[in-house]
């Protein structure tokens, strides 16, 4: 994990550079600035966050003023302006999740990880943050860990997911209550009877 101090310079790995070129090629010539968001994402995947060296590297690559890149970075919360742990735990506390018990999820997460909102565990493994709606309200409450969503959480399942990660396992993402994706809890509630209109007895 890099810390704020040790990001003094940044450059894409050979592989990512290749990737970056492909991304830039998607946009018409002279419009390469449109690639700023995917490139920032690519850089963040490489080093975990988008510090000033990342901003300047990308600004130069896309021939734009660094301030324009910094505006993008500070606008979107998904770009980390500070280093994060190996697991970036983002707990949704917006309205639907709140109504469905995100308080309990958050509390459990803080307890299990032993850190407060916004902090990183001492071993540098977990960073816990509170976020706004992640668009999975139908499976509220939920949290996002790196690229995966863990949904239908209870304090217990929250604990189970985090403990598993601690042990180095990879818990299954998706709903933790057993339902399939966002299908109704307890199985389908429509189309149970497959006979049509007049066929009905």
């Amino acid at each position, binding site marked *: 994990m890099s810390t704020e101090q040790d990001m003094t310079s940044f450059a894409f790995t050979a592989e990512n550079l290749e990737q970056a070129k492909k991304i830039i090629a998607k946009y018409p010539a002279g419009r390469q600035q449109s690639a700023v968001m995917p490139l920032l994402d690519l850089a963040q995947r490489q080093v975990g966050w988008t510090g000033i060296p990342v901003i*300047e590297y990308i600004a130069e690559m896309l021939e734009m*003023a660094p*301030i*324009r890149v910094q505006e993008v970075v*500070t606008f979107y*919360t998904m770009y980390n302006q500070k280093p994060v742990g190996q697991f970036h735990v983002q707990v949704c506390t917006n309205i639907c999740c709140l109504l469905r018990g995100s308080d309990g999820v958050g509390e459990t997460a803080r307890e299990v990880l032993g850190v407060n909102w916004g902090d990183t565990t001492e071993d540098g493994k977990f960073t816990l943050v509170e976020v706004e709606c992640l668009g999975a309200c139908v499976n509220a409450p939920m949290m996002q860990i790196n690229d995966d969503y863990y949904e239908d959480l209870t304090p217990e399942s929250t604990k189970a997911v985090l403990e598993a990660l601690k042990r180095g396992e990879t818990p299954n993402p998706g709903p933790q209550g057993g339902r399939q994706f966002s299908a109704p809890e307890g199985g389908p509630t429509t189309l149970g009877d497959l006979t049509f209109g007049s066929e009905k007895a």
Partner: protein
Amino acid sequence: MPKLTIDGTEIEVEAGVTILQAAETIGIEIPRFCYHERLAVAGNCRMCLVEVEKMPKPVASCAMPVGEGMVVHTNNANVRKARQGVMEFLLINHPLDCPICDQGGECDLQDQAVAYGGDRSRYQEEKRAVEDKSYGPLIQTWMTRCIQCTRCIRFISEIAGTPVLGGLGRSEHLEVGRYVGAAVSSELSGNLIDLCPVGALTNKPASYTYRAWELKKTESVDAMDALGSAIRLDTRGNEVIRILPRVNDDINEEWLSDRSRFACDGLKRQRLDRCYVRKDGTLAATSWSDAFAAITAKVNGLAGSKIAAIAGDQTDVETMQAFKDLLAALGSGNMDCRQDGAKLAAGNRAAYLFNSTIAGIEQADALLIIGSNPRIEAPVLNARIRKRWLKGGFKAAIIGPKTDLTFQHDWLGDSAQVLAAIAAGNHPFADVLKNAAKPAIIIGQGALTGEDGAAILALAAKLAQDTGVIADGWNGFNVLHTAAARVGGLDVGFVPQAGGKDTAGIIAGAQSGEISVVFLAGADEIDMKSLGNAFVVYLGSHGDAGAHRADVVLPTAAYTEKSATFVNTEGRVQRTRLAIFPPGEAKEDWKVVRALSDALGKPLAFDTVKQLRQRMVASNAVFATEGVVAAATWAGAGAEGALSDKPLASAIDNFYMVDPISRASKTMAECTAEFGGGCGCNSKKKTGTHG
């Protein structure tokens, strides 16, 4: 051309015009914060809402193009209610600290709150506060007052071309600030203060020293560079508090360079406010009559050839005319207004003017800059060139300093040989000029002051003739001056008369003893040590190099303290106006010369400024008309000769300090310490000196 109805009046306007602009053509002013006619449309403040029939919601008139048959209401109950809502939101987080705000009395937010604000707040919650940013010695920030109109961001990116400001964060956390490590040191940064519609960006040197309504406003003309920008001098008592630009689309649009704006504290420092005569090696204060007596004692009976005069960079035409006449009366032809030794000949006007005119540069489609850095020599002109470049279809190149000019250009090297190659057609840029419809050349003083100045000028002239820079109805041959006085001096013919010596000759003569009396009319930029044992009489406003060398010092007025004629680099005759009186015993320069002529027993033939100006018109008819540029007839320029291998550089090395006024200014000293000599703010790398 679409027809539409605005507040019951039917008008026809060009397609693509916005509702706000259309309304303006019939005198309806729509309130706005973010819209500015010289900046890109942002449409983010929503103060300009109007109602358009058949549209479901009020629309932002600054961003909405007119449509055929639109029926617009700019001031009905709905519109007023919408604007009141916008205003209420704007004021939620505004500190409402008008009583202690320097913008108070000239604040758009304050004015419009009178029209659309409530008489009390419904907002009970906590207000947001924003940390102030550090923008350097010129701009004071009060970021809590910022209404996020983004005018400052757009100006610094679009007009100044040094994109260091941006909106960081989002929604409630949005703050306007600068990029980490970048300095807000554009040579045009003072304009941010004018553009900011609220008191978020204010004049730092003048902080807390004035209230807008107690200042006396005098419209005048700038003399800090050779553009002659239109300015307004805001004074209180006998003090210039601040200098603002006025609109003059021919020259400065509505911008002003930082030196022209902020060097005004130099008008109060280092001033000569009485006469001095050197006694036993030190200058001792004395009276006008004693000072004149000291001069008379030296000059009377002296052969004319032993007397000489050099005029400085801010000397007005009246003074030079008077001096010229006085020297003629004394039988001397030794005089020069080109203290830098520029190889420009008086009389051949087209060879020393900015012929395309400043506004005309917007028509050029190819540009070659020779020995000049317009960004620090004339920042406002540089912004014009950038504006031209932004429109596209414009190719520029420079032979001279390698620097960031804020517009794309090729650096062709800094040797005069490159110019020779282009002129000979052996360089690809020759074709660029040839193929352009309206090619232009800008030649700076840096190229003209060397030994080979005349040769470079001749090469440039040849190139101009060969490539269509000079054609029917177009003259793109442009000499860019750095001194406000220079064109006026050449126009009035303040150059060696028959048998007389030029600056270099005068200096050599002073050293050898051939010349024993030298008058310096505000000339501070020559090497004073090389004046030998000559008796030096200095006329000027500031205790700068000239006064220190002088044997007699005669205090005169600065450009803010007199009505004086200057001719800008285009050849535009303009007059400054008296805003304050000269300090102490200082007098207007020409009056000093007139009085001196009496003392010397050679009274000049004019007693009033009117007569003097008639005398100027008699010596050159251009002085008859103010404010316009008369096209000068092309008659070649320069003289062929050998080129030296000295690299071509700008005539100015520190933008912030070029004349006695700016050298006396504390603000300019702070800028030099913080920003260096200018041109440095676009560095993408952290410099380590700025946090």
